[in-house]
């Protein structure tokens, strides 16, 4: 809890979203490609690398497709043809790891710029109809938090590390 919470809806929601983006990044720190790609909580097919690729696709879809009214834009990682491509393509390869982080950071930067230059009631176009930017930000906080929950257990099962 901090004085930041007294600055109104936009600042508070933006801070929380930034907090969870950083939390996810920290959950993945200090691991090699094999550890990042390990499906460490069987039978789940999730891995930390799969989550990084998934979250890049989530950011891309909400900001470049929904908020930019461009639903015809192809989904990331070829997910139109192969919906689980973000998780299935998360293999223990340094180049795949590097690509995932470059892609995720680029999508986060795009999102931050878009959000900073639009009001919270700016309307995007979702499959189900119009959606306000504030709904997208709350949704992303919820989605990042849930995936941080996955990352908590994946990381603990990789090397025992907990926290954050």
């Amino acid at each position: 809890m901090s004085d930041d919470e007294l600055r109104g809806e936009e600042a508070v929601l933006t801070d929380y979203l930034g907090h969870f983006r950083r939390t996810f990044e920290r959950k993945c720190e200090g691991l090699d490609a094999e550890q990042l790609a390990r499906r460490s909580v069987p039978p789940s097919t999730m891995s930390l690398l799969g989550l990084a690729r998934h979250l890049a696709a989530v950011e891309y879809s909400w900001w470049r497709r929904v908020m930019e009214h461009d639903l015809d834009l192809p989904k990331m990682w070829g997910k139109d043809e192969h919906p689980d491509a973000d998780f299935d393509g998360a293999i223990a390869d340094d180049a795949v790891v590097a690509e995932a982080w470059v892609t995720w950071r680029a999508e986060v930067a795009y999102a931050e710029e878009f959000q900073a230059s639009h009001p919270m009631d700016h309307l995007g176009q979702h499959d189900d109809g119009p959606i306000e930017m504030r709904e997208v930000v709350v949704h992303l906080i919820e989605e990042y938090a849930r995936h941080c929950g996955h990352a908590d257990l994946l990381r603990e099962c990789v090397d025992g590390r907990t926290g954050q």
Partner: protein
Amino acid sequence: VTEPVDEPLMGTGSELGALRRWLVELRATVERKADGLSAEQLAARSVPPSDLSVLGLVRHLAQMEHYWFVLTLSRADEPRLYVDDGDWDAQFRDAVADEAVVVEAFATWRAVRARADAVMDHLEPADLEFVWDPDDRRGSVRGALIQVVYEYARHCGHLDLLREAIDGATGE
């Protein structure tokens, strides 16, 4: 079993409405993740070395909602649920495979949710700016609601993997 929403949510297109809709969905997610499990399965530490269990998380979520809505926003003079003498781990450690413990946990969680809903029913959008000062820590109603939503969401992530490890069930 998913509990019905017994009254319409606050208007769409508002911050309060958005936060409350997510809370309703996340509570229903927890119900689904726990649905159909025996006391033994509910209490299973199914993703070792983690000591989390579905039952421990239900107790923790009841404790968390009670803390924010009842103790903090309503300033009720009650002890904190499941945390006697600051024994934080008790909410998870004492989540044992016993029918009576299971029944108590779900009854407590549902009762806390009803009290939380009553608090939210009386909130107006302007209340989100309201600032309280418990324990000399400044905070806002907005911050409390967001915190409840993200606590639920993160624990739903734990529940996803705990449940899949118990019986393979996945899904929202």
